[in-house]
Each structure stands twice: as structure tokens, then as C-alpha cells.
């Protein structure tokens, strides 16, 4: 029995530790639900903003004031949903439901900070101000539309890198800033990857959310691989040993 036990334990158990950690850090469904929520709200705000613009152009005052009212409500709702504990709880419950069959696992927080340092939160605020400033520069034609995404990348890439570092996310998360930065470089090199001016907003929306979604999907696929690896290493010879141990216990009684 002892020899069997030694054989079952002969592979390095630290591999189990590595794949458990990798799996826990690559579970990205929580981020996917957050992503869906943000994209949905931004689409609603975008639609109302478009309606407001049309009402203003056509001189339809009742529709203009109504849409401005709904625009403010939608924006306030967006702010509330971003900071509300209720949203976090709903997203968390959805995540638990999604991973129901696999079970619940909370990533090791030794490598991550539960609360972000104040200077990082300040940096996020500064990044938002920077983007509003960029939008103003474009409105007053001090900045070409073509450079909207590279202008954004200049602030977003380092902030994303800092956030990923502090949250201790897996390799998949780095895909987002890397692709966003590469996109900016390609645009500066005048590679034709931008949308026509009629769809100028997509030049920023598609890279921000598209690359984010790619990172989340890569993370999810990698979590499947990590789980498969974890199961195969952990189960190696275990069933046979457990049956044998059970038989021996039964014999002894």
C-alpha cells in the first residue's frame, strides 16, 4: 500500500498548484458579464445621443428636451451601475451560476491588491478627463479624427497595464493593452484600418471593446485548458488508489 501511495505521489504535486492558480486566474466570465453590461449601457447612451442630435438638427424642441432628459438619466444610471454594490453582487451571482458545475473558486489574492491604491484610482479619473479633453480638441479641430485612437492609447495603455498589474490578472488580460497599443501604432503608420468618417465613433469603440472581448475570450479558452490539465494531473492514479484504500478499510472492519 505504501509503495502504491509513493507511486501515486511520484509526480510533482507543485504542478497541481500551478494549474489551480492558472485556472482560477483565467476564469473570465465575471469580466464578460461586466463587459456586456457596459457595452449595453453605452449603446443605449449612444442611441439617445444620436436622437438628441437629430432632434436638434430638425428643430424638434419637445423631442430634443425629452431626449436630453433621458440622456442625463441614462448617464446617471451608468455612473450608478458602475459604482453600485448591487451590480457587483448580480454579476457575481451570474458568474457563480455560470460556473455552477465546475464549482466555486476564489483566486489567490497574495499577488493582487483587493483595494487599488489611491493614486491608481486618481489615474483612472485623470484618464477620463484626458479623454474628454481629447474629444474637445477634436470638436474644435485641433486634433484630427484619424488620431483619436492613438491619442486615447497614449493614456489608456499605461493605465490598463497598471490595473492589470495591481489586480494580478492572468496573461490574457495583457492582450487588451498590447492590441490597443498596436492598433494605435498601425494608425500612426497610416495603415488603412480605420472606419470611414461617418462611423468615426467606431474607431474608438471597436478597439476599446473589441480587444477587451478578445482578451476575455482568450482567458476563457485558456481556463478550459488549465482545468483539463488540472483534472488530468490531479486524477492520475487517484481513483485506483482510492478504491484500493476503500477495499482495505472494508477488509479491516
Amino acid at each position, binding site marked *: 500500500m505504501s509503495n502504491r501511495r509513493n507511486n501515486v505521489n511520484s509526480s510533482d504535486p507543485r504542478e497541481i498548484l500551478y494549474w489551480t492558480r492558472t485556472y482560477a486566474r483565467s476564469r473570465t466570465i465575471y469580466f464578460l458579464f461586466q463587459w456586456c453590461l457596459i457595452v449595453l449601457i453605452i449603446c443605449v447612451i449612444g442611441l439617445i445621443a444620436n436622437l438628441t442630435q437629430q432632434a436638434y438638427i430638425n428643430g424638434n424642441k419637445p423631442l430634443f428636451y425629452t431626449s436630453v432628459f433621458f440622456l442625463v438619466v441614462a448617464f446617471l444610471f451608468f455612473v450608478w451601475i458602475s459604482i453600485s454594490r448591487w451590480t457587483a453582487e448580480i454579476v457575481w451571482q451570474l458568474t457563480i451560476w455560470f460556473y455552477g458545475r465546475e464549482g466555486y473558486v476564489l483566486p489567490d489574492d497574495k499577488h493582487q491588491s483587493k483595494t487599488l491604491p489611491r493614486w491608481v484610482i486618481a489615474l483612472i479619473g485623470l484618464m477620463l478627463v484626458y479623454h474628454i479633453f481629447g474629444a474637445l480638441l477634436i470638436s474644435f479641430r485641433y486634433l484630427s479624427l484619424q488620431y483619436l485612437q492613438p491619442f486615447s492609447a497614449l493614456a489608456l495603455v499605461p493605465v490598463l497595464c497598471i490595473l492589470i498589474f495591481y489586480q494580478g490578472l492572468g496573461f490574457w488580460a495583457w492582450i487588451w493593452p498590447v492590441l490597443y497599443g498596436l492598433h494605435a501604432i498601425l494608425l500612426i503608420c497610416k495603415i488603412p484600418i480605420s472606419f470611414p468618417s461617418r462611423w468615426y465613433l467606431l474607431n474608438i469603440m471597436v478597439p476599446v471593446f473589441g480587444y477587451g472581448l478578445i482578451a476575455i475570450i482568450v482567458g476563457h479558452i485558456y481556463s478550459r485548458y488549465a482545468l483539463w490539465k*488540472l483534472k488530468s494531473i*490531479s486524477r492520475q492514479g487517484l481513483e485506483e488508489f482510492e478504491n484500493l484504500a476503500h477495499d482495505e478499510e472494508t477488509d479491516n472492519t
Partner: protein
Amino acid sequence: MSELDRIIHEPARLRILTILAGVEASDFNFLLNTLGLTKGNLSSHMDKLEKAGYVKVEKSFNGRIPHTEFQITEKGRDALENYWKELDRIRNLNPPVENE
């Protein structure tokens, strides 16, 4: 010469403790699915680990569904660390015979 910890040297318990060392916490379902043990076997191993003070158990309810969460304790982490050290020492004493 110190001996290997008998509680951890059991393959299923070694795996359970190693999994718990890689995460902040996990539930019964996760361990069950990952290790492919029966509910009875897993419960019995968790009992032994809890009695040894290597894991902390927290029972709660998710709505009406009972939820059991496990966490490795500092004592469990130290025991696992010592077990690995001891295992490495034994392996170095008896290097594997290479096939010719």
C-alpha cells in the same frame, strides 16, 4: 531523519491541500469535480484535514442551497511546504534510475 506527514502523504489529501494552496478559497463542488472522488470519500478526507487543523471550513447558504467553502490554514500551508521539502530531500537521496 524526519518522517513524511501521514495526513498529507495520502494521495487524495495531498491533492486537496495542494489545490487549496493555489487559491484563496474553493467549494466542495470544485474539489469533487476536479479530483473525481465520491462525495463520501471527499467528505471523509476533508474531515481529517479539518481535524488536523490544515483546512478551515465555512458553511453558508446560497438562497436555499447549502454552500461549503474550504480554505487552507497557515498550519496547513506550513505542513505542505515541509512535506514538499521532505519529498525533495528523499528524491535527492534516491535519484531515479535511468533506463539504458
